[in-house]
């Protein structure tokens, strides 16, 4: 149980900067997700908190105490490694028991037995306790490595992509279990993932990391509905958000967006207008989630944009339809049984009220019209 804070932490590996001025404040008992693409510095961040990597700059504090110079074995953190890092020469039982036998966290042998069996039962590996790690499947190894962490009662759990190597079904199941477990454990958890669904479903808060920098820290709603940068908007959501550059066209009292050559129908929402006015922008970037674009094969109303089907990928319950308009590809979601041959004309209707607006120069969030996602921040 601990508050953990990083202040302006920078970690370099030779020329490569893995973390660049990262500041994070993690509250006690929070389930904090660190999300980012491969090579963003997620694992380095965990290593810095665990004490495995020592940052060149900045401080790491636990419960307000600076822990930069404290060795990993004295920090009382439990970590699940992405490649499991099981001890190959020890049985599953001994692997899980290992922290409880260490000089730092020693328990009596009877207590160890009890604890290991308890944890093994939760993870459903109690029938594997006598095996060696080499005799396990990847999913089982991952659970052993989880067990080695869960057997302890540390200040904080650090989990590095603990579900990545499980197959889709087990992953889903474990995700649900994690949520349940977190509620019971009552311990701060820092969870690294590159899967946006995991991040959104598990996290109390999410930090989005890109190239060693924090892009945004916020609740799942913040991240999804008010992404701080285009990078965040693109990272969350499948298919990816559609980002279009649009000029602002002023006609009388009304402002219109010039979207793909059509400047007559997309009114700038009132809340957005004031922000744009304040920033004196001439062009903006507008993001539409695929679900916020409707389509039709007949030209029903004047506000629809003409496009052509570019590709159609059925995915079982739904399909991703990519349309081609004004030199841009636009992704949207369609039913899987749709007849959409390439080059068929299609008419798109953009829902501007759900659109997310970004500054064209800085690619940072300006505003959105809808209120979802809590408070309204400029």
């Amino acid at each position, binding site marked *: 149980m601990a508050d953990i804070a990083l202040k302006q932490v920078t970690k370099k590996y030779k020329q490569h900067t893995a973390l660049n001025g990262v500041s994070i404040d993690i509250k006690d008992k929070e389930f904090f997700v660190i999300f980012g693409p491969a090579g963003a510095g997620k694992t380095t961040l965990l290593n810095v908190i*665990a004490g495995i990597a020592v940052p060149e700059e900045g401080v790491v504090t636990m419960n307000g105490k600076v822990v930069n110079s404290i060795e990993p074995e004295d*920090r009382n953190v439990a970590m699940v490694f992405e490649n499991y890092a099981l001890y190959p*020469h020890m049985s599953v039982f001994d692997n899980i028991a290992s922290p409880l036998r*260490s000089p730092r966290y020693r328990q009596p042998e009877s207590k160890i037995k009890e604890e290991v069996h308890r944890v093994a039962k939760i993870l459903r590996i109690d029938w594997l306790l006598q095996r060696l790690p080499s005799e396990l499947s990847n999913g089982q190894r991952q659970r052993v490595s989880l067990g080695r962490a869960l057997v302890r009662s540390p200040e904080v759990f650090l989990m590095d992509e603990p579900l990545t190597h499980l197959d889709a079904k087990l992953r889903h199941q474990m995700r649900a279990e994690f949520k349940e477990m977190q509620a019971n454990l009552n311990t701060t958890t820092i969870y690294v993932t590159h899967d946006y669904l995991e991040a959104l479903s598990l996290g109390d808060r999410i930090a989005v990391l890109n190239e060693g920098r924090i892009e945004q820290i916020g609740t799942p709603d913040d991240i999804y509905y008010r992404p701080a940068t285009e990078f965040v908007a693109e990272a969350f959501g499948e298919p990816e958000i559609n980002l279009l550059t649009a000029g602002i066209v002023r006609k009388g009292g009304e402002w219109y967006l010039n979207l793909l050559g059509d400047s007559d129908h997309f009114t700038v929402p009132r809340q957005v207008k004031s922000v744009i006015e304040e920033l004196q922008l001439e062009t903006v970037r507008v993001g539409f989630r695929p679900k916020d674009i409707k389509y039709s094969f007949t030209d029903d109303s004047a506000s629809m944009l003409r496009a052509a089907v570019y590709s159609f990928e059925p995915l079982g319950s739904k399909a991703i339809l990519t349309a081609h308009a004004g030199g841009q590809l636009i992704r949207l979601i369609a039913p899987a049984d749709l007849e959409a041959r390439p080059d068929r004309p299609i008419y798109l209707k953009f829902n501007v009220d759900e659109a997310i607006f970004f500054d064209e120069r800085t690619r940072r969030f300006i505003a959105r019209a809808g209120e979802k996602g809590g408070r309204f921040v400029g």
Partner: protein
Amino acid sequence: MGNTNPFSKLLKNAALLLYALFALFPLFWMILISFKHDREMFNTVFLFHPTLENYKVLFSSNEYIGYFLNNVYVSVGAVLVSIVVGVPAAYALARFDFKGKENLAFTFLSFRFAPELLVILPLFLIYQKIGLYDTYFGLIWVYQLISLPFIIWILRGYFEDISPEVEHAGRVDGYSWWRVFLKIIMPLIKPGLVAAALLSFIFVWNNFTFALLLAGQGVITTTVASLKYISSDTVHYGQMAAAVTISALPEVILALLIQKHLVRGLSMGAVKG
């Protein structure tokens, strides 16, 4: 593979047998000679009156036992020093990134391909000057040229096979670095360590050049001692063979004892996971 045809199996075994005969014959011959009288040495082949005379002469004085012990001290000492130095060196080469790492590693390896005679003359002069000539320590030191590269290069592969995360996991589990090394790393490199130590022991034990030229009357090893049976008028082949047979014994016994480790130990570190 997996050819179960009885004929090809037979052929395979025959070939192996043939090779075994070819490889073991010198050893067999040596043992045979060691049981012959000097007078029967040249006029009998396989049929002779076996005698223990040679062995009796060998052990009639404490001389030979002294040579044997010398060899034990020097070889065991050399291997121990190599382990103490080589294990950390191999670990450093495997784990840390430092300038000139590969060059350093290659330098260690190059000890193995430089002919011993190349360095012996300067070493001889240096040893004379600083008083290492004809001492146990002098030989142990120079033997590092033989044993150290083995240990470093075999163990480096082993250390590289252990992912750093395993060490990190140990640290996070509450073990100090030193304990992680002893409890987790050492058991994992043990097969390699045993194999490398044994191999370097054999090479050091059999070394002739250094022992001959860098030691005088004080530290005579069995390999050098076998020359003693060549005198100006005659060569005592029987005693020489007995001496060499005895001096080969420790290697044979050791190799048999750790055969299991040997094959596994040499092949495992080489294959990257």
